[in-house]
């Protein structure tokens, strides 16, 4: 197992563990908004590290550039998607869990 493989496998396992954490997070978190924070951030990190593993493993310009392009692309789209869903959820009145202390957004939007 040469150095390149070791680094690849380490990165892959980091990514996979992130994924599992995201999975557990989405299952156990009490309400939608907290779950979303878990999934978006953690999953993107997971994929990021796996793609880094690809860049390390294949060491070719073409492939590494595409891998990095994917990471960039994901970093761009994931937050936007999360934002859109949170917006829609909030507007359609998805309740916050009972543990939440305050709803700072209340009153700011003219909810129909």
């Amino acid at each position, binding site marked *: 197992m040469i150095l390149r493989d070791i680094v690849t496998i380490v990165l892959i396992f980091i990514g996979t563990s992130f*994924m599992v954490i995201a999975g557990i997070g989405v299952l156990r978190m009490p309400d939608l908004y907290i779950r979303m924070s878990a999934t978006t951030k953690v*999953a993107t990190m997971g994929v990021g590290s796996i*793609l880094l593993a690809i860049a390390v493993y294949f060491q070719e310009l073409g*492939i590494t550039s595409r891998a990095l392009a994917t990471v960039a692309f994901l970093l761009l789209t994931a937050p936007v998607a999360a934002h859109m869903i949170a917006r829609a959820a909030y*507007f359609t009145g998805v309740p916050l869990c009972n543990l939440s202390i305050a709803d700072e957004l209340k009153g700011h939007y003219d909810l129909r």
Partner: protein
Amino acid sequence: MSLTGLILYGALPLLTLAMLFAFIRLVRGPSLPDRVIALDLIATMAIGFTAVYAIARNQPALLDVAIVLALLSFLGTVAFASYLEKRI
């Protein structure tokens, strides 16, 4: 233990396990946005899965599939979101 062996019997099962969790959320998810998030998570995990499998099988071509998925997966979420907003 060879790299591929490690991946096939280590990383991939874990990834699919995570996918199973996301799917359980999709089934249980009380409101629609929960399901949408679960679907989005499954899509991201699919990207990861493809990338890992590309390494395991030493096939860089699979990376393009990951790119396409990355490009398009968030479209579904946006579509669901716009539908929800329009309906209220």
